[in-house]
């Protein structure tokens, strides 16, 4: 099994979610995160004082899938998250050793 993690622009979340559902992905975990890459942050001004905000809000999506589905999941997320502008985010894939469905105790791919 693989864990596909994507960090994307917050306003692309709905597109990505719908694309993944169309591709047959049945679950995901999302979290609000902050960070920066090449995009860097932005500035804000309060009463004339300039504040540099380096950590930009992003949404992180975690999807666990079968080994042979990982490339497809990455492609779907990539397509749906892309705006072509700087700050579109990153996707990475890592191997998952074990997976447990808490309710039934199923192990491995059966727990997907």
């Amino acid at each position, binding site marked *: 099994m693989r864990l596909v993690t994507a960090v994307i622009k917050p306003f692309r979340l709905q597109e990505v979610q719908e694309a993944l559902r169309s591709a047959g992905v049945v679950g995901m975990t999302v979290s609000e995160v902050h960070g920066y890459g090449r995009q860097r942050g932005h500035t804000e001004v*309060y009463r004339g004082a300039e504040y540099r905000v380096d950590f930009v809000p992003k949404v992180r999506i975690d999807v666990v899938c079968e080994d042979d589905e990982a490339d497809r999941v990455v492609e779907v997320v990539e397509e749906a998250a892309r705006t072509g502008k700087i700050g579109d985010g990153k996707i990475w894939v890592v191997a998952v050793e074990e997976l447990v469905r808490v309710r039934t105790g199923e192990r491995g791919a059966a727990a997907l």
Partner: protein
Amino acid sequence: MLRYNSGDTAWVLASAALVLFMTPGLAIFYGGMVRRKNVLAMLMQNFVTMAIVGLAWVWFSYSLAFGPDWGGLGLLGDFRFAALSHISGAIPGMAHQSVPQLAFVAFQMMFAVITAALLTGSSADRLGFAAFCIFVLVWSVVVYDPIAHWVFSPNGWLAKKGTEDFAGGTVVEITSGVSGAALALVVGPRRGWPRELMRPHNVPLSVLGAGILWFGWFGFNAGSALSAGRAVEAFINTNTSTAAALLAWLVVEKLRDGRPTTLGAASGAVAGAVAITPACGFVNTVGATVIGLVAGAACALAVSLKFKFGVDDSLDVLAVHGVGGFIGTLMVGLFGVSAVSGANGLFYGGGFALLGRQALAVLVAVSWAFCATAAVAWAIHKVVGMRVGPDEELAGLDVSLHEESAYDFEAMGSGGVSSRAFITGPEARPAAGKD
């Protein structure tokens, strides 16, 4: 036999309630500008000021500020009205007043409350709670009550010299602004200031707070007429100046920073209301507009001065209330017009006489507020220590002082109630049974 006018009395009582509401409004205005970890401490300081100064007022402060003059020097009232005794007669020096003295007591109480509450802005995020309570009580009695007597009581020495301060440009605005700066100077800056980011955590709160202040200011200014009939000029001038200052602040921001900001609009409105406070019953529409424009622009420029002087007046009490009060009080000497009330200023053929009296009042208010507040703050700081410890300051005052936090938006540990929905439309609901 005193004859009261029921319309005037009703207006003054309603105004007192309007002005009372300004203090929670100020708390919200300031609460939005502090960091998330300190918002409750800010609200708490303002709320407790309503209680402390409100009680002190009826027990002795009213008597000190408005009681029969002590020795005829015009410096302080005596204790005749302590605990509101002997209060059925006329307000000393105001025999012609058409409202009962108790209505005046209530109205002026709210002024004492909000003036003290303004000091929370300059000293935000670093004072201990007990130390703040002691300070606000002592400050109100030692610093506010005397200057209220000097200017607001007809027996006060500045009032006798012909100072024109309709609703408190000196007593409330200059006093709070300059005292705020003195307090910030004595207790020192917030840990990490100005190196660290301390941006406002909730600007919508600040905008709501400014709106409540704007609303309450009609009571503050027009109520000061102590008559429903004579309140109208002050009422309309309050709105005119507030509107002009709001726009002037935005223009300064557009030219200086490239963007008009929401917090700037809120701050500009407050600056305009501050500046018209001493002038609202003495000027016409031209005067109110110019005062608002000048104050909005000047206060917008003044907010960056604290970085130059290295004094952490955290929420710009000096730059908004001090500078705004200074401008408004002086400009009465330019735009005062006897057709409204009071003396003519320089632009209406009155020469420099009124301007000189206004300048004297400004000088007295600035010197008194700075010296007396610095002395009070220094003494309390030496005896009890005004600041929280470094760990408490870093953790935030909400948890350190009150064992509370303002916002609980976390899903963790809650009953599974979602605060947001990403999915739109019925077709987007997850299909059942796949699990």
